[in-house]
């Protein structure tokens, strides 16, 4: 059974139909690419799945449950995390704080426990250890006490990904993870993605413009154009698909 299924998902902004009856599937443990020209509705689609935009029609099934209509934090609690094109971090908080924010059911979240350190100290230490593990994985452990604003663009992307991991997600939605990142680091980011899939069994749905890198890593690719799904297939199929070449590469 696929991890994520969309049925006839539709989103209207006023008169504009940004997403038009899109149905797709993401298999458990897969890395799936989502490509298309600018304005084809990819980011909107990610927002609909993550619950940060409200759908006009259609259904979203995640892990066997319908999640259409849940709020963003509820969707996150179910196991879907979303990354952004511009890294959305708390710039004035430390790297470690940023990583700790999404941790579920912390005791120190409750005002009646918070004043008594011994009620949450142990759990907080465990969380910090987990966060340190994640930061090490994304090579940011040395920067745990820096403000997020002091990190480089690529490091911010990695921190954002690390933060998503802290919520132990089943599905990561990434929006151009390599945008604004130096080419060598861009490849590293995708290797990191691949490693995460192997080690944690995380499923990925990735919007990406650097097709040459993307095609090296994906299991399958969906192509969007003007809110519609244009094609679906393996990286090789898509690369040689005439219609796709026409709308996407303009030749």
């Amino acid at each position, binding site marked *: 059974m696929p991890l994520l299924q969309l049925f006839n998902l539709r989103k209207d902004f006023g008169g504009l139909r940004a997403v038009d009856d899109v149905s797709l599937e993401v298999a458990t443990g897969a890395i799936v690419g989502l490509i298309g020209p600018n304005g084809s509705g990819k980011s909107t689609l990610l927002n609909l799945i993550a619950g*940060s935009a409200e759908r006009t029609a259609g259904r979203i099934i995640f892990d066997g449950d319908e999640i259409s209509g849940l709020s963003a934090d509820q969707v996150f609690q179910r196991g879907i995390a979303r990354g952004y094109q511009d890294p959305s971090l*708390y710039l004035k*908080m430390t790297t470690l704080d940023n990583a700790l*924010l999404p941790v579920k059911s912390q005791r120190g979240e409750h005002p009646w426990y*918070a004043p008594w350190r011994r009620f949450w100290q142990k759990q907080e230490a465990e969380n910090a250890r987990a966060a340190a593990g994640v930061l090490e994985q994304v090579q940011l452990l040395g920067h745990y006490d820096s403000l997020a604003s002091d990190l480089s663009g690529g490091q911010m992307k990695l921190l954002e990904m690390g933060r998503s991991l802290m919520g132990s997600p089943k599905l990561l939605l990434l929006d151009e993870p390599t945008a604004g990142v130096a080419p060598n680091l861009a490849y590293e980011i995708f290797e990191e993605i691949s490693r995460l899939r192997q080690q944690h069994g995380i499923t990925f749905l990735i919007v990406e413009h650097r097709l040459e890198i993307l095609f090296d890593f994906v299991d399958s690719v969906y192509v969007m154009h003007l809110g519609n799904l244009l094609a679906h297939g393996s990286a090789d199929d898509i690369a040689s698909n005439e219609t796709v070449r026409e709308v996407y590469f303009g030749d």
Partner: protein
Amino acid sequence: MPSSLLVTSLVNTIQIGSLYALMALGLTLTFSVIKLPNFAHAEYVTAGAYAALIISLAGVLNPLIIIAVAFLVGALTAVVSHLIVFKPLERQNVSLYTLILASFAVGLIIRYILFTIADYFNIFDLRIAIPLQILFRTGSLILTNLFAWVAPTSIVLVILLTLLINRTALGREMRALANNTILARVIGIPVERVKNYTWLLVGGMAGVAGALWGLQSAVSPLMGWAAIISVFAAAILGGLSSFPGTILGAYVVAFSENTIMLFLNFSYGVDLAYKPAIPFIIIIAVLLIRPQGLTQLLKRAGELGR
């Protein structure tokens, strides 16, 4: 200015400043986490004071119990006003002006409920009558157990709140909300729950401030409203976002209202009745000259709590 007057006024500054800090931190929290300059904040103070007064009249004279009850009633008032008024309004995405007006209205409603209660039991201008003990005495200064309760309790609570914001998971999430509520939702922070807890803390602190105010002065339905401009002045000095800035602001306002006012009166004959004008002058001056408040003086400025 005679030295005895200076000493007395500085003692008053510490006492009043600590109370202002307790109230102003709540205001700063609501403004940054909930995004609301809450004028009803004054009435949480009064509600806590009346709760404290009523149980003290019922014979409970243990200051700790009185403070705990004031915390609970203040917190309850704040949470209820959030659930009944502010939360539904936020859902409808109303403008900031609407929210401010609503906060005025909520304040008025609570104030007149308190008026009705005070009128029914005929409890106006009464003090929370903890027996007075003199702890320290010189020719020009007497310190009592009231001073020993009011100033340290406020300072301890202010420190606790600062630690809570900077060291605990709840504080981390409140800081996140203060910076970006939408992002907080996306990364799975239970936004509604954190907001409820924020209201709880804010109301509780205000309630305690009311009880302490009632210990050292008198309880009336207008007491919170009379103090709110000074409290706003303190919060605005803190740039409405910084904790140390707000605390510093609270003492600056109290110092201006006591020591500077007395100095002006003593040296230049300025009438003490101008005292209520001081917080207004501070607010206008800060907004004109330094809208960011005192925050930029401090490292890692701009983030709630720092």
